[in-house]
């Protein structure tokens, strides 16, 4: 586990160091996106607001048809848009999608 501090509110989180993008939900409206390299080192930490413009999580175009069948993609879209607050299951689903490369962290104007 690696301890990361949320750039938005300062809350601390334990993240299991899996290579690639990891997402931890921090509060109802934001989370922390962490990039871990192949050796388990944290390389990037971003505060990710779900609702507002700025850094955010989005479905990768052309990958949404590969989303696992048990994930309600329409619901997760609403979660990522900030339209509905995520449940614990939604957060886990977002982490699954991030690990699979179906959802990714994006900087938006």
């Amino acid at each position: 586990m690696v301890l990361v501090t949320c750039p938005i509110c300062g809350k601390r989180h334990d993240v299991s160091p899996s290579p690639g993008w990891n997402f931890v939900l921090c509060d109802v409206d934001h989370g922390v996106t962490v990039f871990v390299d192949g050796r388990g080192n944290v390389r990037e930490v971003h505060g990710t607001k779900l609702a507002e413009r700025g850094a955010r999580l989005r479905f990768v175009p052309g990958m949404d048809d590969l989303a696992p069948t048990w994930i309600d993609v329409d619901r997760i879209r609403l979660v990522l848009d900030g339209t509905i607050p995520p449940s614990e299951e939604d957060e886990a689903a977002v982490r699954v999608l991030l690990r699979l490369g179906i959802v990714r962290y994006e900087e938006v104007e």
Partner: protein
Amino acid sequence: MSSVIPREALQHLELRLQGAIVGPLEEAGFFEEIEGRELSALSQEFGDRKLLNYLLEALHDWGYIYLAGTKVYRTAKRPEVPPVVGDDVEDFMVVPSKVFSRLYEAVKDGKRPFHVSSPENRALFYRFMDSRFLKMMLLEGLRRLGLSSIPRGAVVADLSFHMGVVTGIIAMETEAAVVAVDPSQDMLDLARERLNAQGLLRDNISFIRSAPERVRQAVSSAGHSVIHLAVVAEKLNWIRDPILLLKNAASVLAPGGRGRERGYIGILQSVWDDPIMRGYSLATYLMGSDISPRRSDVDKWLRASGLRYKVEGRGPMFMARAWR
């Protein structure tokens, strides 16, 4: 999840798989390339000879090519479109359609562009294992192998894993302790999150980072000494040494006697002999597995592992309980 797959759906699936294989090969000019050629000459010209051989065998048995002496010729047969295709078949075909679009390239150049070892192909393989059809097939098989009657106090080792798809099925079907084993921490985390997302995570499920062959260490680091069921589902075509896996799993099985049930290995395996599994097998090969073993290979591996076994089903997957 329904537990019985209608035979008709399997036949439709096979027709769709044949179409997904033959169509792109036609477009790539594969049939013109092999027309009237000697088999031995062809194997010099293709990068993946193993794939070529299995592909030719499938095309031959499906009736798309025939042999005259040692030369290959195309028949008049063209892929049939099944009359009504169910949702489950369409859902299953998402991934095979994609991987077979580059089948020619794979057989010609000997490259597997959809190999699951590349992170960008993870989603593809996950989606494949996660298709309703495959999950139904796994569920039906595992039920036939007695998964649902494993009691709460028992231990089930998931030596198959497949990114946690098999673990999810086990967690749904039994309240027994589950030890999910995989060498990749990343995949174990993914599996944990899957179970979490599905509301199936509970305290008696352990995710152990280990090669499945090192099952004894994995089980003991989860705090157990024996297992009552070792699930080996669609795994024998994914590991280097199936005999070692079976032997090692057998060595941790709970001994029977005095009213206690003897532990066993539940084997669920697609076999090349079943025509319905050939398209499926070629698709998984393109994503990194070996071609599904022949039924005789599975028999040979079981015997070489010193196991006794009882066959529980033969189609579309081979199913057996094995014990010491």
